C-alpha cells in the first residue's frame, strides 16, 4: 500500500507545523511592550463588556494597547483554557467563569493569588466566595449578577391575562392556557448545534428551590452523602423537564433550534417561556434592541408561593496566570476593572443586566423590564447561588443527559441516576474526600 507512508509523512508534517505554530505563539503571546493580551470567550455579552473596559482604559492610558483574543465557549472553551494554562501559553490575562469551573483549573498552581492586592477590598464578599480557594482570591468580576429562570413574552401574558407563576403547578397551568390559545409554543427548548447547554436550565436554575427544601444540600452533595437521584427536591428539576416535554409544551423544532434562534423565537412571540440565564438579555439587545422591552423574567418556580426565590450566577472574572512574567500592567488593568471607574465604563459601553459586585457601583434607573424584575429578587433578598458556586462538583455530561430527557429518550429518574455517576468522575478527578 503506497498510501500509508505518504499519509504518515503528511501527518508528521502537520504535527510539526502545529508544533511550530505553538512555539511562535509563545513568543508573541507574552510581554510585548505596552500591549496587554486578554483571552475572552466569544459571547456577545463578554465581548461588549471587555471592549468597553479596554476602550476606557486605553483612553486613560494612551501608551497601552489591549488586544482581546477570542475563544469558543462551552466545554471546548474549557479545554482551551486548561490546555493553554497547562502549557504556559496563556496571554497576560484571561476571562473565565467563577465557581466550580474555576476550581477545576487548579488555581493554586496556575493563577496568581490576588488576596493581598488593595483593589480587592472593593470587590463584594459574594463574588469573593466564588473565586476563593483556601485563603487565596483569584479573580476580579466583570459584568453583572446573573439570574437563572424563565424569560417570557410580556405581550402574550397580557393578552391571555396570565400572572407570573410562583409555583410549578401555576407555571404548568399557564403553559396549558398558552397551548390552548394555540398561537405559540408554551416552552422553548433549543438542542441544536452547539446549544445543548441550554437544556440544563431546568436543573441548574432550580437550586433555590432545592436549598429551600434541603438547606444542607450543597455540603451533603459535595461530601457524597446526598445525590440527585435520592433527593426528591433535587430530582424535581429532571422531572419538571420531563413533564414539560411529555405534555407537548415544547416548540416543534426544539431538536434543531439553536440558542440564538430560540431567543429570536421568544422575541417574535413564537414561544412564550424560555428557561435561560439573564445574560441572554445582552444577546437579545445586540440582535434586536427593541425586543428587549417585550421580554420579562421570573425565577423558576418551586413548591412554596411565599418563598419563590431566584437562583443566581456570579459573573465571570479576569484572572492573572502565573505564566505572566511581567504582571505589572495586568495588575494595573485589574485595579481599574475593580474600581467604580471600571463599572462606569461597563455601564457606558454595554447593557446593564443586573447589579455589580464592586462596592460603590450603581445601576442606572432606566433598565429593561426583565432587569427590573431580576432586581426585585435581589431587593427582597430571595436569592441563592447556583450549585456550581457552592460545590466544585459538576459533571460534564449534564447537557447531553438533559437533552435526552427533553427529547423523551431517557426518563427523569434514570437521568438523575446517570448524572450522579457522571459527577463521581469529576469529584475523583478533583481528589475530593469521600468519593
Amino acid at each position: 500500500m503506497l498510501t500509508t507512508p505518504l499519509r504518515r509523512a503528511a501527518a508528521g508534517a502537520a504535527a510539526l507545523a502545529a508544533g511550530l505554530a505553538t512555539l511562535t505563539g509563545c513568543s508573541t503571546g507574552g510581554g510585548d511592550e505596552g500591549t496587554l493580551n486578554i483571552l475572552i470567550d466569544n459571547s456577545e455579552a463578554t465581548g461588549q463588556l471587555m471592549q468597553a473596559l479596554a476602550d476606557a482604559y486605553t483612553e486613560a492610558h494612551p501608551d497601552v494597547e489591549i488586544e482581546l483574543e477570542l475563544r469558543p465557549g462551552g466545554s471546548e472553551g474549557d479545554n482551551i483554557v486548561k490546555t493553554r494554562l497547562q502549557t504556559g501559553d496563556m496571554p497576560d490575562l484571561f476571562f473565565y467563569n467563577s465557581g466550580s469551573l474555576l476550581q477545576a483549573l487548579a488555581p493554586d498552581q496556575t493563577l496568581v493569588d490576588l488576596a493581598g492586592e488593595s483593589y480587592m477590598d472593593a470587590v463584594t464578599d459574594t463574588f469573593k466566595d466564588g473565586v476563593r480557594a483556601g485563603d487565596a482570591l483569584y479573580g476580579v468580576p466583570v459584568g453583572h449578577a446573573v439570574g437563572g429562570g424563565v424569560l417570557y413574552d410580556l405581550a402574550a401574558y397580557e393578552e391571555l391575562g396570565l400572572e407570573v407563576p410562583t409555583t410549578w403547578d401555576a407555571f404548568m397551568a399557564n403553559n396549558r392556557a398558552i397551548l390552548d390559545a394555540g398561537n405559540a409554543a408554551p416552552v422553548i427548548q433549543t438542542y441544536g448545534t452547539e446549544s445543548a447547554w441550554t437544556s440544563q436550565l431546568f436543573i441548574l436554575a432550580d437550586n433555590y428551590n432545592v436549598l429551600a427544601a434541603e438547606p444542607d444540600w450543597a455540603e451533603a452533595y459535595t461530601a457524597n452523602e446526598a445525590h440527585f437521584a435520592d433527593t426528591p427536591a433535587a430530582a424535581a428539576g429532571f422531572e419538571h423537564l420531563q413533564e414539560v416535554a411529555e405534555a407537548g409544551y415544547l416548540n416543534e423544532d426544539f431538536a434543531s433550534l439553536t440558542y440564538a434562534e430560540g431567543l429570536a423565537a421568544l422575541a417574535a412571540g413564537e414561544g412564550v417561556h424560555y428557561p435561560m440565564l439573564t445574560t441572554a438579555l445582552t444577546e437579545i439587545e445586540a440582535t434586536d434592541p427593541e425586543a428587549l422591552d417585550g421580554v420579562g423574567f421570573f425565577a423558576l418556580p418551586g413548591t412554596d408561593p411565599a418563598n419563590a426565590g431566584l437562583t443566581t450566577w456570579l459573573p465571570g472574572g479576569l484572572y492573572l496566570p502565573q505564566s505572566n512574567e511581567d504582571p505589572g500592567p495586568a495588575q494595573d488593568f485589574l485595579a481599574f476593572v475593580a474600581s467604580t471607574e471600571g463599572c462606569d465604563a461597563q455601564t457606558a459601553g454595554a447593557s446593564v443586566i443586573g447589579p455589580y459586585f464592586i462596592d460603590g457601583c450603581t445601576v442606572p434607573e432606566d433598565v429593561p423590564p426583565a432587569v427590573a424584575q431580576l432586581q426585585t429578587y435581589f431587593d427582597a433578598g430571595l436569592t441563592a447561588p447556583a450549585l456550581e458556586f457552592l460545590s466544585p462538583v459538576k459533571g460534564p455530561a449534564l447537557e447531553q443527559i438533559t437533552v435526552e430527557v427533553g427529547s423523551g429518550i431517557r426518563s427523569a429518574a434514570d437521568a438523575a441516576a446517570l448524572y450522579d455517576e457522571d459527577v463521581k468522575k469529576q469529584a475523583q478527578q478533583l481528589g475530593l474526600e469521600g468519593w
Partner: protein
Amino acid sequence: MTTTALPAPPRERRRGHRSHRSHYPLWFYLPAGAVYGVLFIVPTVASFYFAFTRWNMSGTEFIGLENFALFFSEPYLFQGLVNTFVYGLLTSGLKVVLGMLLAVFLTSQIIARGYLRSVVFFPTLVSTVGVGITFTVLLDPGDGLVNQALAAVGIAGPGWLTDPDLALISVAFVDVWKGVGLATLIYIAGVVAIPQEYFEAAEVDGASGFQRLRHITLPLLRPATATVIVLSLIGGLRSFDLIWAMTQGGPGFTSDVVASVIFKQYQAGFWGLSSAGNVVLFLLVAALMVPLYWKLNRKEVER
C-alpha cells in the same frame, strides 16, 4: 489521539529471503527514524503510561486499572461501541458495493468518462468538517434543502440528524458520499488491470454480461476489495471528525462512537481516562484489523 496505525503486514517477513542488506547507509534512515520516534513511538508509549494515571492540572497519580474500569462502566460507552461497529460496517459495506458498481460503470464506454470520474472523486478532496457543516445545513428538519425538496413532492421528511434512531445512519450516509470516491478509484485501478483476454475468451464461450461480472470481474477484484475493506473499516472504526461536526454525538448520546466518547472525556479534563479510552480503541482496532488484514492477504497470495 493515539495513532491507530497497523503493524507491518506479516507477509513482508515471509518474503524475507530477499537481500537483507539495505541499499543505503544507516545514517540515511536517521532523520526519518528520529521523526517517527518523536512523533509516533514516544507519544504511543506515553499514552499507555498515562492511561494508568489520574492526570489533572496538578500532575499525575498512578491508579492502576481504575481508568479502564471507569471507562467500561461509562453508561454510554456500550452504546458508543455498538454505534462504532454499526458505523464501521455500514460505511465499509456501502463503500465496497457502491465503489465497485461505480468503477464498473466508469470503466465502460460512456460519454464524458473522465469528467464523471473526477466528479465521483471530488467529495474526497473536500475537508471533512466542511462537508459536515454543509450537510448539517442541508439536513435541517425545517429549513434544510433535503426536507424542502421532499416537501415539494408531498413527503414529510424526518429529522435526519435530530431523530435519535436516524442520526447515526444519516452521518454514515454522508461518510459514504464523501468516501466512496476513493473506493471507486481503487476499484477502477483494479478493473483496468484485468486482462482483456479473459473477457474475450468468455465472450467466445457465450457468457452473458452478468456472468462476466460475476465470474471474471468480481474474483479478480479481490485485491482491490481487500484494500477498500481495510481502509474503510479502519476509517469507520476510528471515525470522529464527521460525527463531531454533524451531531457532536447527539441528540444526547445516541450517535456517540468510541472516539467521540473519548474526546468528551478529554474535553472534560479527564486526561487519564481519555488516554485509557484511546488505548482501548487502539487495541480494539488492532484486534480487528490484524487478523482481517492477514486473512485477506493470505487469500490473495494463495491465488
